């Protein structure tokens, strides 16, 4: 489903039926072509595949395409303008992305296949070294598993906590909905790091939470469940998962709320009449309609959580290390650019595959 099918009265389609094709060139093709060309040029320059004179040439060409586009717009008349307009609007933003998102990814790929000439060399030599990938898998397999594992558990927990919250606000909030939503968001105006540090303090051995849990006698149960380790909560996998759950809760709750809010209340009432019970009405009607929100929320939670290392850094222990931390360490401490790049790329690939499979399963609903 493309956006054109959803947007009422898109600007261009009205013209096509009335305008006879007299032109010898298709402005849309021109616009798209130029956009893609400049994007590709920037990627190529950015990754350093061309340097020196060639790079200057490439940049000049980029400038040239912008001029060409403007020229075509001016010379072509209002119809051409209308067709080229979207490409013109897209150009600056897309070019920024090309240079600072796509080019870096290509650079990452290239570095992942390179070798460092010496330990502290600043540039790696590209030599199709796939060994970096095997190192990434063999040495850091555990970190990958834990990274995705904790993220998965945290995502499930955010659904468990966030869905009821979104439900209550959407259906029982009444005129206080906005306020309640605001209340969900407010805690997240403080720094992510400070919130995690706050948990570190709250969960410390002499801190309030373990003390309360011990006083209430929950310790043996929690120990059995593997949530507590002796009398500690801090520096356990549970603490890391707890941190992830907390930090990503609004990313799950808000999209679910958006989906639920769109549901027509008459539909709900009708469902209740049909199914003679709130629970069945929920299962058959409300829940399926909230799936888009659930889908978006899962992606918005699971993806960042699997690459996160802040929670591990403050709340974890050396046995709970995750892939995000390893990548950071390889980059900023070991200065091992090739292996770090390989690990980054593998992380991204796994997530992309997951997203594709997940989208197929759920249907390609848009994320916004």
């Amino acid at each position, binding site marked *: 489903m493309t956006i054109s099918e959803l947007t009422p009265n898109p600007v261009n389609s009205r013209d096509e039926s009335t305008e006879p094709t007299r032109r010898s060139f298709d402005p849309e093709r021109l616009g798209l072509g130029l956009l893609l060309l400049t994007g590709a040029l920037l990627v190529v320059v950015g990754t350093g595949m061309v340097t020196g004179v060639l790079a200057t040439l490439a940049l000049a060409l980029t400038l040239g395409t912008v001029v060409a586009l403007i020229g075509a717009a001016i010379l072509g008349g209002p119809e051409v303008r209308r067709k080229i307009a979207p490409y013109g609007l897209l150009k600056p933003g897309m070019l920024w992305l090309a240079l600072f998102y796509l080019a870096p990814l290509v650079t990452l790929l290239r570095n992942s296949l390179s070798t460092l000439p*010496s*330990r*502290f*060399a*600043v540039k790696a030599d590209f030599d199709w070294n796939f060994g970096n990938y095997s190192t990434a898998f063999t*040495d850091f397999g555990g970190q990958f598993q834990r990274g995705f594992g904790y993220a998965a558990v945290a995502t499930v927990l955010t659904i468990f906590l966030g869905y009821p919250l979104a439900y209550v606000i959407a259906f029982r909030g009444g005129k206080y909905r906005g306020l309640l939503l605001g209340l969900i968001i407010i805690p997240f105006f403080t720094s992510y790091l400070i919130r995690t540090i706050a948990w570190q*303090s709250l969960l*410390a*051995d*002499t*801190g309030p939470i373990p003390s309360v849990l011990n006083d209430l006698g929950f310790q043996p149960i929690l120990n059995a469940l593997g949530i507590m*380790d*002796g009398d*500690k909560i*801090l*520096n356990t996998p549970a603490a890391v998962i707890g941190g992830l759950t907390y930090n990503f809760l609004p990313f799950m709750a808000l999209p679910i709320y958006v989906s639920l809010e769109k549901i027509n209340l008459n539909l709900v009432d009708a469902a209740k009449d049909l199914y003679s019970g709130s629970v069945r009405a929920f299962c058959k009607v409300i829940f399926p309609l909230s799936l888009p929100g659930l889908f978006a929320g899962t992606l918005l939670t699971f993806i960042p959580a699997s690459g996160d290392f802040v929670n591990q850094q403050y709340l*974890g*222990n*050396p*046995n*709970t*290390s995750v892939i995000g*931390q*390893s990548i950071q*360490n*390889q*980059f*900023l*401490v*070991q*200065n091992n650019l090739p292996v770090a790049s390989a690990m980054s790329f593998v992380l991204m690939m796994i997530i992309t595959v997951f997203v594709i499979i997940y989208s197929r399963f759920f249907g390609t609903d848009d994320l916004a």
Partner: protein
Amino acid sequence: MNSPNNDPLSRMSLSRRRLFARAGMMGAAGMSLPAILAACGGSSGGGGGGGNSLFFENWPEYIDPSEDDLTGTVERFMAASGVEMNYAETYNDNVEYFAKIQPLLGNGKPIDPDLIAPTSWLVGRLISLGWVDKLPIDLVPNAANLRADLQKPAWDPTGEYSLPWQTGFAGIAYNIEATGRELKSTEDLFDPAFKGKIGMLTEMRDTMGLLMLADGVDISTVSTFDAAATAFDRLEAAKNDGQIRRFTGNDYLNDLSTGNFAACVGWSGDVVQLAVENPNIRFAIPEEGGTSWADAMVMPKGAVNRDAAAKWMDFCYDPVQAAQITAWVQYVSPVAGVQAELEKIDPELAVNPLLFPDDATLARTFSFANLEEGVEAEYDARFSAITGA
């Protein structure tokens, strides 16, 4: 050494308390230094032009600040020499800092500071990479005051590239209330009674140093990766079964106060500050041996303000000035003759064995040998794999 009556920490803590009675112990007190410097019209970044400014990037809490009626060393220096000095306390971690400067120095570009004070092993690496300039020692007459045992060290064999800022020890820091007894040996860190309450440093040479010494390896002469094999295995086992809770930087101080750690590997001067508010915190150099380290001033390649830097180093190596610095930071001064001067300021500190180690203590502390690049890479890789990176 740590019996209640002549516990060096409690004696040190009294003198520290005197110094801070009015000012309060907050790190913010130290961090108000840039404010004072800004007020003095100190330039931010003395790298370009004019030889009369200086940019020194140092570790936090590593110099006596100006507070109440005490003038800090930087202020005194600026008044005495007329040099505009920018003193920054943003050097937080050796490896992090190295990663920051690597793309610049590695590509032949200079970095902003004229002086930095990395730990000895990093100094060795910078020298071998050719990323530091020789110090203008001929313009520093007071350099002759350098302690004999620090001259021409393993990490700077010609002694031309570095001048130590402070030195200190790594040993066992512990909370006597949590441990219930005095700790004297590295083996105590592996006591199952403290399972899950032990911390170790991310600083490889301090953690591995202690473990290798406990194994009977002489770390001052070690040159191969195999020599550390047993120690590494032991570390890995302790990490896997949960004996070690975490590997930390300076944040072990926090964990000691909140009870997360019963004992950990720590640095001598830091623990003193903690002991002021919590007399239960003790420090011990293990029987098997502790490590001694030095942070040394070096000049990154391309630094311009050589004359100003020389004046600064000369100023700091004057025993009178050095004593002022030591009275605050309470690490081991690299300047000979400081003890005599310190007696005039703070007689209790002047006889403290942690600041002025006697021969018995010195015999128990060892400086980690300078490892060759390939061997160092093996150590770093194995250590990172264990510390969970």
